[in-house]
């Protein structure tokens, strides 16, 4: 029975990969963040919501909120809609964007379907993880680029593995992001609800 389920999982996974992937570009531009494939929950775990897919925490609304709070002005004609590149005045001295300054994690938007307790717990746990990593954020090294680190935790919050899932093109940046995630461990133990839903996370870094 389990073997059949596993095979089903793989067949569906392959089908999903071959289907065109919606790639969500991160607000900071420069390299897309691969949205890691979302698999349907195996039939063994029924969830209260009728969602056929597990819904990862969506960042776009958060990113938009962050842009609005950013004080950095930009007069460049081709200003991207994303977090604006520092303008000449801003480059003279621009503290961290307001959202980060107050060490506030941009609040995760509620999942698309309902207010599932597991999803809310996951969102809260993700907030904790983000805060822990952001606190150990490295100082700027005058290199620009974006990369994504995928990392897996165990039931106690210890880091099992971390790898570069989306490289920036510059190996030093990738290594720095990877080291940040590794050295921020151990992370808080995940609540059981969250642990059941899987402990694979992906965090994008944007260096400017």
């Amino acid at each position: 029975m389990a073997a059949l389920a596993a095979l089903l999982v793989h067949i569906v996974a392959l089908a999903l990969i071959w289907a065109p992937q919606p790639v969500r570009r991160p607000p900071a531009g420069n390299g897309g963040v691969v949205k890691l494939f979302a698999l349907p929950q195996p039939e063994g775990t029924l969830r209260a919501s009728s969602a056929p897919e597990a819904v990862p925490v969506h960042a776009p609304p958060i990113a938009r909120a962050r842009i609005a709070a950013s004080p950095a002005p930009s007069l460049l004609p081709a200003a991207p809609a994303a977090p604006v590149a520092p303008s000449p005045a801003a480059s003279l001295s621009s503290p961290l964007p307001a959202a980060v300054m107050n060490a506030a994690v941009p609040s995760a938007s509620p999942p698309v379907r309902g207010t599932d307790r597991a999803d809310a717990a996951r969102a809260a746990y993700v907030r904790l993880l983000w805060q822990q990593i952001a606190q150990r954020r490295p100082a700027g090294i005058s290199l620009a680029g974006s990369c994504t680190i995928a990392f897996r935790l165990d039931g106690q919050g210890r880091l099992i593995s971390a790898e570069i899932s989306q490289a920036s093109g510059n190996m030093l940046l990738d290594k720095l992001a990877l080291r940040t995630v590794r050295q921020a461990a151990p992370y808080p133990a995940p609540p059981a609800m969250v642990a059941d839903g899987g402990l694979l996370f992906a965090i994008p870094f944007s260096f400017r």
Partner: protein
Amino acid sequence: MIVSRHSLRLSLLASACLWQLPAMAQEATELPQVDVDSATSPANLATAPLTGATLSREEVRTFQTRSSDTARLLQGVPGVSANGGGGFSSMPAIRGLNEQRLNILVDGHPIDSACPNDMNPPLSYTDPLTVQGIKVITGVSPVSMGGDSIGGVIAVESAAPVFAKGSKLLIKGEASSFFRSNGDGFGGGLSLTMATRNLSATYSGSYTEAGNYDGGGDHGAVRSSEFAKTDQALALAWQNGLGLFELKGGYHFSPYEGFPNQYMDMTSNTSWYLNGHYAGLFDWGSLDIKGHVRDTDHEMNFLADKRGLAGRDMPMNTQVKSAGYTIKFDLPVSSRDTLRLGHDYHHQGMDDVWPAVAGSMMMGPNPYLNINGGRRDRIGGFAEWEARWSDKLSSLAGLRYDRVLMNSGTVQGYNGMGADAAAATAFNALNHRRVDHNWSGSVLLSYAPVAGVSMELGYARKVRSPNLYERYSWGRGSMSSRMIGWFGDGNGYVGNLDLKPERADTLSAAFELRGTGKQGWSLKLAPYYTHVDDYIDVVKLANLSVLGTTVAQLQFANQKAEFYGLDVSGVLPLWDDGARGSARLTATLSYLQGENLTDGGPLYHQMPLHAKLALEHKVGGLEGALEYEWVDGKTRVDATRNEPQGASYQLVNLRTAYSWKQFRLSLDVENLFDTGYDLPLGGMSLGDLLADGVQRPVPGRGRSVNVGLNVRF
């Protein structure tokens, strides 16, 4: 991205056959993005303090049409001014401290000047057309940035190497050219990068040339201000699991550069260099190793304008060979603390010889050995501790030790007659070896209590040893002493073997307010105070009569000096709506008082109170700016050097540019009203004096219409 998807498919296919997954979901929960900013913040105290400013490639591009002189580009930063030299060799000064006292780095490496008149300062080897970014720190800087300086930092950077992300070859670059009506200046530059995922090669080259420029109003042509030069460089980078390896080689050649404020002109400057760099990141920290080698051949004589009264020929050749390395360790010892350890070494060897002139009674039969086998070797180490107490508060404390060893060989004059012969004998009887043990330290505190408010406080004790000319210039004759000096004042200078290193205590603070919102306003106030013990100023030895004028013969001597002032800068957005585009107002103001505490008079070449105001407007691809500059009269002058006073003046510049796709066309009118004015820090116009006996300060540039074209690909 296609590559990673492909490998995902492959691995999944493989795992499908081998893997018996328990019922475990594989979705990755995405966290919000973490932004790592290199801009000023308490987290970046060691690399971007609040008193600093960074000029991006965009800003340099805006001004490259106007000037080929990188030092003049920096004058937009409050607290930075430029002591005039040749057309591409101005010497920057920060808060009253001149170029010799600053820490100037190009690609992270120091460059030695190789000239008794400092005609080839470090920034003269850079060209705005190919400069990618400039970092300036006007206040206290951390000891990890370098030693052997008592003032701020100017770091000119080439672009960090870029690599391709996929398997396709990456080709990008930028080409620029310009024409300036005043002086018929023209030139061009090219930066070209070709890269694969692991290898990157960047070529950068530029050429610039101009004739004598005209002063504004009825000042007429400024003699001996022509120049031409080319800079070429090739940088290779290789990134792999061990880290980043870089090798850069370059060549600079200038066939001529006139110096309006010197008795001599540069008739050839050739310099080649090789820089190596390794950067590695490990779990225990990061390691950065830099090494450099440079060979410079500098020749002086008279260009056409000076031959009238100076004569036909007086060759002076300086050769400098430099080598050095820097090793830095960055060790994050806890989530809060970072320890930085570093060691650096730099060797400078110099020969400054003035060959005999055939048929001249005075300049022969022997070559004049000004510096014979001179050397200046620095070895240093530092330890720095940085603590990030929270997102709002950071502190930094560092200690540095530098050992400077200097020596010079036996000297001789052209012949056995006159003051020089006696001076050579006296000089050769003495021991020339000097060793300085210099201890420096700096402490910085950065606090950003709420969003929009930042403050910084810094204290530093920095020490600088004298340069080779300050210690070893020995000639006492009128002509030989007037060949020494980078002050542009026409005076003669004599070295002093007993000079002690300068020791400066600096207190600097910065306070910044920023408005919230997308187009916030900002205001920065930065006061400072510096007290220098053993400041190397001058005492008067005698008066000299030159071409009907009287100048002074001066000797370097340790005295006491103090500098204090305030730098203010602000930005005010005016409007930002689609149809009318966006507009903003920027303003800077600098107040400086430099005083010699030993004789109670003002110090030489202190920039008077000045302010700049600019109205910038952008709509679509069109951008424009109206700039207004006001400089107060120069009333605080150094009487010992016969420094003349100067009148106040106002300048208006107009700047427009149109960008379309990857092209940018710029039209720039400098000194719109052709105002005639004297450069407060320009020195005396010796080129004009030697051409037609007229004595006056060096005039500023008259009106110039500058056109530039830039393409990025």
